[in-house]
């Protein structure tokens, strides 16, 4: 059976949209349960941490270069660098490492 691009597109959009927007619309009231509130407060950091490691080491074709980029990003972020400064330093360090290696 020949699959249609438009149906694929519609499915991708519909699923992604519903997963994102339904919770926002459903949970309109403030949640009072202390455990749930704490849980939700920690979610952003837990999600980002789990998404970053170990995936970041495979984001570049060369693992040592990626590791150097991570170290650079952590140092700059630790010193309070902005979102862009941190991302750019990681990128520059990876590029330099790729040139050297």
């Amino acid at each position, binding site marked *: 059976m020949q699959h249609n691009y438009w149906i694929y597109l519609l499915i*991708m959009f519909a699923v992604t949209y519903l997963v*994102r927007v339904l919770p926002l619309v459903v949970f*309109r009231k403030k949640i009072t349960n202390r455990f749930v509130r704490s849980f939700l*407060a920690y979610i952003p950091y837990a999600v980002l*941490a789990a998404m970053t490691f170990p*995936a970041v080491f495979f984001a570049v074709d060369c693992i040592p270069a990626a590791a150097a980029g991570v170290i650079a990003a952590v140092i700059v*972020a630790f010193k309070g660098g902005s979102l862009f400064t941190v991302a750019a330093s990681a990128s520059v360090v990876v590029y330099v490492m790729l040139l050297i290696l």
Partner: protein
Amino acid sequence: MNLLAFNRGLRDGIAIAIGYFSVSFSFGITAVASGISWWQAVLISLTNLTSSGQFAGIGIIAASGSYIEMAITELVINMRYALMGISLSQKLDPTFKRWQQLILGHCNTDEIFAVAMSRNKTVTPAYMTGLAVLPYIGWSGGTLAGAICGNILPMMISNALGIMIYGMFLAIIVPAMRKEHPILVVACVAILMSCIIHFVPAFSFITDGFSIIICAVAASAVGALLYPVSEEEEEAEHAA
């Protein structure tokens, strides 16, 4: 529309937009390489605005997979957004109208979510709009550029750009880990679990999308048990 909040959002969105441009650039290259046309790739980016879901989707289209497979894959990979949506719902300003939620809610990407949540104020519609505009343009523009002229860019540069998205993640979690002990613990639990699931062969059946959900839920639950946030602390944070 509060122009000040809108401008503040725009400013916070610049870094995300640049990071997105580079990531979606490689999406554009991949999409065209797997056999769809440039405008089809751009249309996917305009309607989906998510990296992992789109890369997986392209894979299924290229392999001519079934519609059911597409739906389940997208659901699993994007399920984390439901978690983040609930979290964000608690941070939205009361002035948020239903139709604004229906539009801006779709812009709740990993990075936009993290930046919005790291503010110590409620998220207003004006701020959220400003925050989403540039990343949205960057994401679609990057896809277009990658789809049309992807092969011109040297491999090394696209490689170096690939790490930007993670640099942004680190820029958000590292300062928070440094400042607050509970977040340090939560992040370490999440990282440890994520590495175990990735490297231990017994867990290789767990897909990336599920892995993120499992790790985030477990780590946040540990944090909530060990370090419940009190109302006063939250108030203090918001006032800061």
